[in-house]
């Protein structure tokens, strides 16, 4: 089954390019550490999911590119075409002349309705190219105007028009300080709207990615390209073909469906995060070896202590003793900053993958009390190595990890809202104070729900 990607705004398009590039590079990588036949099956599966075929053999990304001004899309198209290995469809873009001005209301209320038909037509055309559709992957930022506002509008449309297909929104959480001054307003409006119309929100935080670039990749002058490439690596490790645990002989066919089934058991809890181990520069990679035991130990602690990367993990954080009464568990959790999970999925790729022991992840202490670990935890193992990492593990997690950042954004937005600053820019285009209040209410609910896991 195939995934149709919708890239929205500058952020969505810049990231989208890196993601397709990473997927393509990996699937054509000769060092798969597996048999030729295996590699070919992997390639074919990846292709089915993300690329369609053209007569002259250059694969075309299954993507629709949307932006309200032309510079970024032009760049993205030419970068892909220049690589010569894959490209975007010639008619897969929708572009206007003037951007959304970082104004969620403009993206949602003006651009949305105005261009609804054209954009949905483009998506329809892309869907028709698929033999069967697994769902939509929508890449967008929360801080700007197009990705956030138009993205929310399009997602709602997708829900109406393709009610049987799954939608996963990939959201970029902006830096804590200043990319955009009204980023907190735009974020709360986006999140509250998406919570109603999307099936899952996969979040990447710029701050976290930046730290990975600085500490793990040792990049001195970090550019957005570096950040996007780390992100693409993480997404690739999740979305590339995998076997199910039962050791079936073909790759999973429904990537989005499988992800959602495992990770979103309840519609109140839709926020997912990715962690990846190991992550390092190519240079260092040549000199490193890993054991599954070591990798998984670190990954587990990263989950528990809410660390974003394998450096600087707080090893003091421990799961509460199982058997403690529920009340006691909650207070102990709060003290130790323990990150409780609702559901986890570990994806292992590489050498000797079957010997990896994931017992540590099945500990009921990691999870909220109302799900059995058997239901809350899943693992997928694949022998074919990813992106030249001899062994790599990805963790997709529905946990409390976003409570603090979300709380912070809501708090800052609330403070600004109380002073009414910038509100006139939104009411100009039909987003009223009441819409803000609705968003605040919904998000406070989400924060409270996650806090009480």
């Amino acid at each position, binding site marked *: 089954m195939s995934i149709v990607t919708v890239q929205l705004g*500058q952020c969505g398009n*810049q990231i989208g390019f890196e993601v397709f590039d990473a997927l393509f590079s990996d699937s054509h990588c000769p060092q798969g550490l597996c048999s030729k036949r295996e590699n070919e099956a992997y390639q074919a599966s990846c292709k089915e999911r993300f690329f369609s075929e053209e007569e002259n053999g250059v694969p075309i990304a299954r993507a629709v590119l949307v932006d309200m*001004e*032309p*510079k*970024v899309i032009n*760049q993205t198209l030419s970068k892909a075409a220049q690589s010569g290995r894959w490209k975007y469809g010639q008619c897969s873009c929708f572009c206007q*002349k*003037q*951007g959304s*001005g*970082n*104004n969620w209301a403009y993206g949602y209320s003006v651009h949305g309705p105005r261009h609804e038909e054209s954009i949905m037509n483009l998506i329809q055309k892309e869907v028709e190219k698929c033999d069967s559709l697994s769902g939509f992957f929508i890449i967008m930022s929360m801080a700007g*105007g197009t990705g956030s506002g138009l993205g929310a509008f399009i997602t709602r449309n997708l829900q109406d028009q393709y009610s049987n297909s799954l939608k996963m929104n990939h959201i970029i959480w902006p*830096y*804590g*300080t*200043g*990319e*955009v*001054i*009204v980023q907190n307003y735009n974020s709360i409006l986006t999140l509250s709207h998406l919570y109603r119309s999307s099936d899952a929100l996969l979040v990447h935080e710029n701050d976290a990615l*930046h730290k990975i*670039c*600085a500490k793990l990749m040792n*990049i*001195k*002058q*970090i*550019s*957005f*390209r570096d*950040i996007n490439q780390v992100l693409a690596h993480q997404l690739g490790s999740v979305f590339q073909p995998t076997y199910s645990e039962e050791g079936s002989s073909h790759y999973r066919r429904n990537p989005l469906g499988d992800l959602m089934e495992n990770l979103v058991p309840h519609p109140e809890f839709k926020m997912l995060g990715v962690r990846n181990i190991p992550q390092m520069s190519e240079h260092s990679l040549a000199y490193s070896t890993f054991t599954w035991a070591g990798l998984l130990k670190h990954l587990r602690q990263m989950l528990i202590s809410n660390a974003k990367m394998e450096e600087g993990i707080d090893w003091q954080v421990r799961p509460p003793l199982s058997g403690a009464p529920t009340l006691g568990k909650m207070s102990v959790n709060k003290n130790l900053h323990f990150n409780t999970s609702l559901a986890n999925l570990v994806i292992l790729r590489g050498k000797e993958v079957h010997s990896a022991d994931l017992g540590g992840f099945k500990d009921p202490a990691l999870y909220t009390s109302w799900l059995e670990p058997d239901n809350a935890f899943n693992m997928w193992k694949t022998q074919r190595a990813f992106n030249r990492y001899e062994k790599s593990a990805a963790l997709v997690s529905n946990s409390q990890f976003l409570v603090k950042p979300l709380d912070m954004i*809501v*708090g*800052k937005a*609330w*403070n*600004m809202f*109380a*002073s*009414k*600053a*910038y509100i*006139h*820019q939104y009411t100009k285009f039909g987003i009223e104070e009441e819409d803000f209040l609705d968003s*605040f*209410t919904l998000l*406070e*609910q989400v924060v*409270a*729900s996650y806090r*009480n896991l």
Partner: protein
Amino acid sequence: MTQSVVVQVGQCGNQIGCCFWDLALREHAAVNQKGIYDEAISSFFRNVDTRVVGDGGSISKGKICSLKARAVLIDMEEGVVNEILQGPLRDVFDSKQLITDISGSGNNWAVGHKVFGSLYQEQILEKLRKSAEHCDCLQCFFIIHSMGGGTGSGLGTFLLKVLEDEFPEVYRFVTSIYPSGEDDVITSPYNSILAMKELNEHADCVLPIDNQSLFDIISKIDLVVNSGKLGTAVKPKSLVTSSAGAFKKQQEKPFDAMNNIVANLLLNLTSSARFEGSLNMDLNEISMNLVPFPQLHYLVSSLTPLYTLADVNIPPRRLDQMFSDAFSKDHQLIQADPKHSLYLACALMVRGNVQISDLRRNIERLKPSLQFVSWNQEGWKTSLCSVPPVGHSHSLLALANNTCVKPTFLELRERFMRLYKKKAHLHHYLQIEGMEESCFTEAVSSLSALIQEYSQLDATKSMPMEDLPRLSVAV
């Protein structure tokens, strides 16, 4: 991509405008080596086949034939505009896009606004409509004028109302030259305050600039260049004041260097909208992020670096210096000290080989020494444009919505009151039809209300930051 139209009004406006077009051509020539008319150039220039008579000559793609500035030149005297049309830039301007008169406004806002306003309203509308028609997607009008005279001040602000009525969806960015303390026009306080009311009501964004600050910057540069401290080191083209290598040959006029600074300001302001980068910032984002309340739309600007040394590899320390300088009061284009006042919002527009980590490092470094209003503690808007200005490897334009504009307004009001109390020169204004004393009192009220808003914000500076109680939800 969108287009912008520059409307240059009065002597000051036209002189600055001329420098602007000069530099714009130079910039595009440096970036666009192949001579293809692309979207970046089209933001400020039309491509015209001059062999075609009449208006049908616009060419939208392909090789550059003849570039015409998207400009309307207005002056109630002929001297300056005629000089432009006889100078090296004469082919860049469309001779039909001018409005001139002979007598001038006599440094009288009322003449500019009321007399010439009504006299030329139709013509102005016609020229503006024409320039808008030539645009695929018109986003912004840039108005350049001075506040202290008669034409720029009076007619320039009359224009704003016309633009607001005729093109309500198009942004109105105004670059206003405020009179310095030692201004030689006696009535400049009257003109400025009358103009301020219009700016308050009809401009989307105002970039106040004063001659004293520009002059100080030039003196500073001269000192450095001539002191020999840097040896042979300063790249001549890199002076933010220079038009070296541009079309205009003579640089002897005193205002040239100062005007070039303003021209550079406008180029840098629009660079991220015209050229590509990893974090673009369009013109509509400036207003969205920097104007928290409609009346507080005055932005203090600073440009760094003022010159580049000849060595090409800039160590990070020097890059960081560029950021530090942007906040020093010596680099502001009006007499203001943002560091010791309250920030409502701040935008950093970077050009050249600067990455997000450099930007973040410097924001983190400088943040503790700056005061932001309580509801916008992280009030930063940033942009990264890959194309540096000519002669530099990187540059920074900082725009601050900061209470440090208040002193400028206070001083203006004071100078006004000194004249007004004695009714000095008032008769020159009152004898113009449509002018009454109430015009003056209303204008002062408008300014006082604005000053009051800034004062109220300043009062919050030392108050402790309190987090407001949040909504509580049942779980």
